[in-house]
């Protein structure tokens, strides 16, 4: 067991943190949000230059073969900076799905472009009623010559407003929540019959609603049994989100400490009041527990045992959700009025944290899943 970073990992961490420090000051970020599309395309190019967009991809596709630890380092730094780039939807989800499900030609066509920043992906899985169930799909794919046509609607497609290619989950068979009969399909952003309505999300990121009406599509790999790969890549995305959340929480905690040390009331810094000190301590404990579970999620993200991996991700996401809500609410409360304003940074972190909880299942949803899935601990009795 070894918690130390390798030299390469340390370099990566430093360069991402430097980019975030240089380019993601509060006022800079505010300026990006005011741009059309809510972000500065130059930063995406910079991510490509730093090698971040190909980080988790295999070297043969222009990637760096990075694993969950590398992703964790990037995402935690992004969390601290409240980075607006669609890294999670395009690189982690989109790139992950193509690498895992695509055939050789698809990988060659898409992944190098993704790594170079020439192409952006998004994963359209959610529907009006599906909430957090990846198998709850009513969008239909019908074979049409060599390809498919899709009919249906997808919602809250993260990064979906500017993606060049959308990866859409759809049914080639089975009933609404069946595990079987699901395929993944590539849809070009300018495909006929595709309408998309892009919008900002509560935390300043972007998403889109899609409608598909006889929209031509290509199957990503062989359609039918895609649920397993969807789960695997979404689990990986959840681990990444947990790492991002740790960055967000750490920033909220630091900001709160700074405020406690500088804000004066009744003739002294409010951080001298013991009741507030103890609450800052409880925030720290929640943060450390969250950091530990983000590490756990990182360790388990590539497990080949879907049940074990599922338990770990449910546990991590639940912990992140609880710690995040606790830390976020306390951060606002301890700041008082100023924390409620858009002019001050803590509220932006609070909003991002809240949206992370709404992504891929909130804390209680995952708690319920874990409760049904058995114990997190293997039985020691097995040996000896």
């Amino acid at each position, binding site marked *: 067991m070894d918690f130390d970073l390798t030299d390469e990992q340390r370099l990566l961490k430093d360069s991402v943190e430097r980019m975030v420090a240089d380019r993601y000051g509060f006022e800079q970020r505010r300026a990006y949000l005011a741009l059309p599309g809510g972000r500065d395309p130059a930063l995406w190019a910079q991510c490509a230059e730093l090698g971040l967009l190909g980080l988790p991809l295999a070297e043969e596709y222009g990637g760096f073969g990075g694993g969950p630890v590398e992703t964790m380092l990037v995402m935690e730094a992004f969390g601290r900076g409240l980075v607006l780039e669609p890294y999670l939807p395009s690189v982690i989800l989109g790139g992950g799905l193509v690498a895992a499900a695509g055939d050789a030609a698809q990988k060659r066509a898409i992944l190098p472009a993704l790594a170079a920043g020439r192409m952006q992906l998004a994963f359209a899985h959610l529907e009006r009623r599906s*909430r*957090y169930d990846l198998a709850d799909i009513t969008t239909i794919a019908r074979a049409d010559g060599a390809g498919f046509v899709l009919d249906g609607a997808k919602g*809250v497609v993260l990064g979906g407003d500017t993606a060049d290619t959308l990866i859409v989950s759809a049914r080639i068979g089975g009933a609404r*929540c069946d595990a079987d009969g699901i395929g993944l399909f590539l849809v070009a952003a300018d495909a006929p019959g595709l309408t998309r309505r892009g*919008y900002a*999300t509560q935390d300043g990121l972007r998403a889109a*609603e899609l409608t598909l009406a006889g929209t031509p599509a290509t199957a990503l790999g062989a359609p039918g049994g895609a649920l397993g790969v969807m789960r695997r890549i979404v689990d990986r995305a959840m681990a990444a989100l947990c790492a991002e959340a740790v960055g967000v929480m750490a920033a909220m905690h630091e900001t709160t400490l700074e405020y406690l040390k500088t804000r004066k*009331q009744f003739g002294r810094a409010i951080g001298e009041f013991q009741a507030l000190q103890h609450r800052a301590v409880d925030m720290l404990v929640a943060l450390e527990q969250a950091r530990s579970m983000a590490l756990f999620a990182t360790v388990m993200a590539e497990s080949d045992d879907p049940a074990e991996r599922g338990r770990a991700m449910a546990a991590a996401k639940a912990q992140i959700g609880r710690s995040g809500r606790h830390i976020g609410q306390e951060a606002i409360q301890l700041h008082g*009025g100023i924390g409620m304003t858009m002019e001050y940074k803590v509220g932006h972190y609070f909003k991002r944290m*809240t949206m992370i909880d709404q992504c891929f299942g909130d804390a209680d949803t995952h708690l319920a899943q874990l409760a049904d899935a058995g114990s997190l601990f293997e039985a020691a009795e097995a040996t000896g």
Partner: protein
Amino acid sequence: MDLNFTPEELAFRDEARHFFRTAIPEALRAKVREGRSLTKEEIVASQRILNARGWATPNWPRAWGGQDWSPVQVYLYQDEMQRAFVPPTISFNTTMVGPVIAEFGSDAQKTRFLPRAANADDFWCQGFSEPGSGSDLASLRTRAERRGDTYVVNGQKIWTTLAQYADWIFCLVRTNPTAKKQEGISFLLIDMKTPGITVRPIVTIDGGREVNEVFFDEVVVPAENLVGQENKGWDYAKFLLGNERTGIARVGMSKARIARIRALAAQEIVGDRPLIEDRRFREKLAAVEIELKALEMTQLRVVAEERNRVRGKPNPASSILKLKGSWIQQQITELLLEVAGPYAIPAQGNEDGSNEPAIGPDFAAMAAPGYFNFRKVSIYGGSNEIQRNIIAKAILGL
């Protein structure tokens, strides 16, 4: 001891219930129900309907349009008003400056201001907090200097709710900078149109514009706008803060919000069943309902004690109502967030007149903004930390 309402009280409740649900337009109540912001015109229109019946200011002295209701009637009025999602009256008018003027103002002030405040002809706002004076309100520094028949005001207020709508502001200002901090403060009424006043909006994290900064630069105020005595403003502020505190728990509104969540959760399908059939969700709802029922009983106990209470003297029990009431209100916003699920993520306008159809279910648009916005209820009006300090000192003797 009889904890049931009398037949007279029940009749009053039914009368109030009927009035609120018929006299106040459904469109207005729908906006409150959905947690959307009201325009100034809507707020004023609603208050005028109430005032036409004498129900905008029931807590005022009879001579100035009050109702002489029993504490139970006041409670039922508030409860039914909240449960019907009636837009609240402008609290700065009806529960703050109005009672202060009625108690401490000159006859000229009463005649000039009270009827207009009751009818929302003047829209008031409150100038108490300052950037350096939040929880430690008495450390405020906005200065009012006496020059002949006028005061000249310089300084800054912050968190001024709805200043953008206001015709008048009642301010705490420092008139004696050498006295101990509570003793040099006066209570001044200032016309918002006076030259030298600048209002700067503060956008809150829900995207709303509720609060503002208000700057005073050589603002000349007639001395006749001083309420009561110079340097006694702190006493009037305490009277104001101690007034009308049972409504602070907002039990009626929380009941109505929970009922709405039940209805929404019955429509929201998870897998093959409505969310309301999910046992975990129902238990969370039940847990909040239990606390709310307990708070309702606590509030009734406070109401029952109102009879014996000195008017205007803060009742520390109201701090308990504020603490628990704010917690419950915030819990309810979290439940709504859960009902919205991933459809809480899109940012949708809170404004009227958008032609875009809603993304996801209608209610979802306000789920996250409501959650964000309601973090304020444990901050504004004396933070929960200040409430705990008050209880520790005034009730527990610590």
